[in-house]
C-alpha cells in the first residue's frame, strides 16, 4: 500500500538531497571571496587537515590563514545559525500549530535587543563588545521566560493562544524600554543597529561557544518530530491518544528557545530564516515534522551560508548586513515557491 508519507526510504532520499544542497552551498561559501583562492587549492587544504591525509595545497601561509581563521569559521557559523533558526521556527510552528510562528515570537528578539542595547550603551568600548553575545543570550532566554511565566499565570493550563499573546505583550514592553534607553545615547545607535541586522563573522570563538547549545537543542527538537505530528490533531485528541501534550510542548519550546538564544548570541537578529525555510520545506517535502525538522536544519544552514556569501561579495570589500540579504532574497524566493507548488497541487 502506498501513502506512507514518512517511510524511512523517502526520508532518507529527502535528507540526501538536502545534504547535497548544503554541501554545495558550503563549497560556494568557501570559494567565493576577495582573495581569489582556487577551489582546487581549497579542497586540497581542507583534505590536508584530515587525519592520516597529507597533501600540498600550494597555498601561501597568508592564504591558508585567511581560509582557516576567517572563511571556514564564518561559513560554519552561518550554517549553524541558519540551521538553528530554521529548526526553531519549525519547532515553534509545530508547538503553536500556527504557520506564522517564528523563533522571535515569544519575546526572544526583544529580550536580546534590550540587553544588547544596555550593554552597548552602559558598558561601551571593548568591554561592551565582548559582553554582547552573553547579553544577547541572557536577554533571549529572559524574554522567553517572561512570556512563558506571563502566559502560564494568565491562562489556565497554558493554552497556546495565551502564550502567543503573552509573547506579543512582552515584545512590545521590552522594545519600549529598549527604545527609551537607545534615545538616551543616540550616538550608539549605529552599533546597536549593526548588531540587530546580523553578522556571522565571529570566528572560531563563537563557533565553539554556540556548539554545545546547537547540538543539544537540535537533537531534542529532532527527537520530537513524531510527537509534534501527534500534537497536530490538537491537545485534547493527542491526550486521548495517550500523549502527555503539555510535556511535549514544553520540551520543544525549551529546545527551540535555546536554539534561538544561541543563534541570537552569535549573530544578532537575522529575520526570515525561521519562517521561510520550514515553509519551503513543507511545500517540497510534506507536512510531517519528522521530515520538516531535519530538512529545515539542512535547508536553513544552506540558505544562510548563501545569504552570507552574497552579503560579503556583492559590495566587496564592503559588507551588507546579512539580515538585509535574507529578507531581500528570501521574500521573492518564498513567494515563488508558494506559487509554483500551488500550481503543481491543483
Amino acid at each position, binding site marked *: 500500500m502506498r*501513502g*506512507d508519507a514518512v517511510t524511512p526510504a523517502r526520508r532518507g532520499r529527502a535528507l540526501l538531497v538536502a545534504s547535497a544542497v548544503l554541501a554545495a552551498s558550503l563549497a560556494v561559501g568557501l570559494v567565493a571571496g576577495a582573495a581569489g583562492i582556487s577551489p582546487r587549492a581549497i579542497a586540497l587544504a581542507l583534505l590536508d587537515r584530515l587525519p592520516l591525509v597529507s597533501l600540498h595545497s600550494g597555498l601561501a601561509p597568508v592564504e591558508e590563514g585567511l581560509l582557516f581563521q576567517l572563511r571556514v569559521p564564518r561559513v560554519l557559523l552561518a550554517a549553524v545559525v541558519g540551521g538553528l533558526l530554521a529548526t526553531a521556527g519549525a519547532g515553534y510552528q509545530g508547538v503553536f500549530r500556527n504557520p506564522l510562528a517564528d523563533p522571535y515570537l515569544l519575546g526572544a528578539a526583544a529580550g536580546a535587543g534590550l540587553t544588547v542595547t544596555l550593554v552597548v550603551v552602559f558598558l561601551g568600548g571593548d568591554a561592551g563588545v565582548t559582553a554582547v553575545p552573553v547579553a544577547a543570550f541572557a536577554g533571549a532566554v529572559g524574554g522567553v521566560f517572561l512570556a512563558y511565566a506571563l502566559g502560564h499565570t494568565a491562562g489556565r493550563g497554558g493554552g497556546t493562544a495565551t502564550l502567543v499573546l503573552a509573547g506579543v505583550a512582552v515584545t512590545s514592553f521590552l522594545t519600549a524600554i529598549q527604545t527609551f534607553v537607545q534615545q538616551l545615547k543616540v550616538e550608539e545607535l549605529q552599533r546597536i543597529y549593526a548588531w540587530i541586522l546580523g553578522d556571522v563573522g565571529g570566528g572560531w570563538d563563537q563557533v565553539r561557544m554556540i556548539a554545545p547549545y546547537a547540538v543539544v537543542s537540535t537533537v531534542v527538537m529532532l527527537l520530537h518530530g513524531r*510527537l509534534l505530528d*501527534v500534537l497536530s490533531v490538537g491537545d485534547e485528541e*493527542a491526550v486521548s491518544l*495517550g500523549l502527555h501534550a503539555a510535556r511535549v510542548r514544553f520540551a520543544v519550546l525549551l529546545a527551540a528557545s535555546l536554539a534561538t538564544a544561541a543563534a541570537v548570541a552569535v549573530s544578532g537578529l537575522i529575520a526570515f530564516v525561521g519562517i521561510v525555510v520550514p515553509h519551503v520545506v*513543507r511545500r517540497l517535502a510534506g507536512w510531517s515534522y519528522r521530515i520538516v525538522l531535519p530538512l529545515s536544519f539542512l535547508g536553513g544552514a544552506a540558505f544562510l551560508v548563501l545569504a552570507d556569501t552574497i552579503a560579503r561579495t556583492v559590495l566587496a570589500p564592503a559588507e551588507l548586513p546579512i539580515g538585509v540579504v535574507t529578507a531581500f532574497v528570501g521574500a521573492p524566493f518564498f513567494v515563488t515557491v508558494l506559487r509554483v507548488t500551488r500550481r503543481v497541487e491543483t
Partner: protein
Amino acid sequence: MSGDGHPAIEARGVGVTLGGRRVLTDVTLSAARGRWLAVIGPNGAGKSTLLRAVAGLVPREGEVLVDGTAVDDLRPRRRARLIAYAPQSPALPPDMKVYDYALLGRTPYIPYLGSESPRDREVTRSVLERLDLDGFASRPLGHLSGGERQRVVLARALVQQAPVLLLDEPTTALDLGHQQQVLELVDRLRLADGLTVVTTLHDLSLAGQYADELVLLAAGRAVAAGPPERVLAEPLLTEHFGASVRVEPGPDGRPLVHLVRPLTSRMTPVEGT
C-alpha cells in the same frame, strides 16, 4: 458481561465543573462487553462533556473503570490502549495523509521518543483495508468527503485497538445515507470484535435503532437509563426535550421517534376545521 463479571466500561458519580459552571452532576453509566450504549439528551445537557470526562480529557469527580480497573490509576498510554475516543469535530490537518492519520492511533504503543514498528504499520494497513480505505491511504485529509472523513476518524480509533470506543456524534454533518452507513459499520465492527461502544447521538430514532441501552441526560444529570423502549417514552421526551413527539415501534420492534406539530400551531386558515 465479561468473564469476571465487571462491565466493560463503568462510570460512577461523574461530576464536571468547567469554568466555574456545573456541567455534570453524579452521572452513572455502565455497559457490558460488546454492548452499545447511547447518551441522548437536549442541546447543552452535557453529552459531549460526559464522553470527554469518561475519556479522561476534562477534570472530573467520580470514578471510571474499564473492565474493573480504575483508569485514574493508569498512565495516559495505558488508558489510551483501553479507551479510544473520537470527538465530534476532530482536527484533521488538511495536508496529512489518510495513512499517517490512522497511524496516529498507534501512539499509545510507540515509545515516547521511538518510532513505529512494522507491527504498528501492519495494524494500520489492515484497519484501512477493513474500512475500504486502502485506496485512500495516500490521499490528504483535506481532499475527503464528509462520509470518508468519518470513516477515517473511525479508522484511527480502531487502530488504537482499545476494547472501548467512545464516539461523539459520529453522524454529525452526514446525509441520511452516510449516517446509516457509518452506524452500520460501527455495529459490524462491534459485533465482529466484541467492542463496547458508547456514543452520543442527537437523533433519537437512530439511538433507538442501534443502541442496546440509552442514558438520557438533562441539565447535567442522568434522568433515565435503560433499554430504548423504556427511555424513549413520550412523557420523558416531552418533559426533557420540550418537544411534542409520538413514539411508535418500528418494524424490528425498536421505537421510532416522530416529531409532531403541536396542535395549537396548526390553526391555519387553509386547514381550518
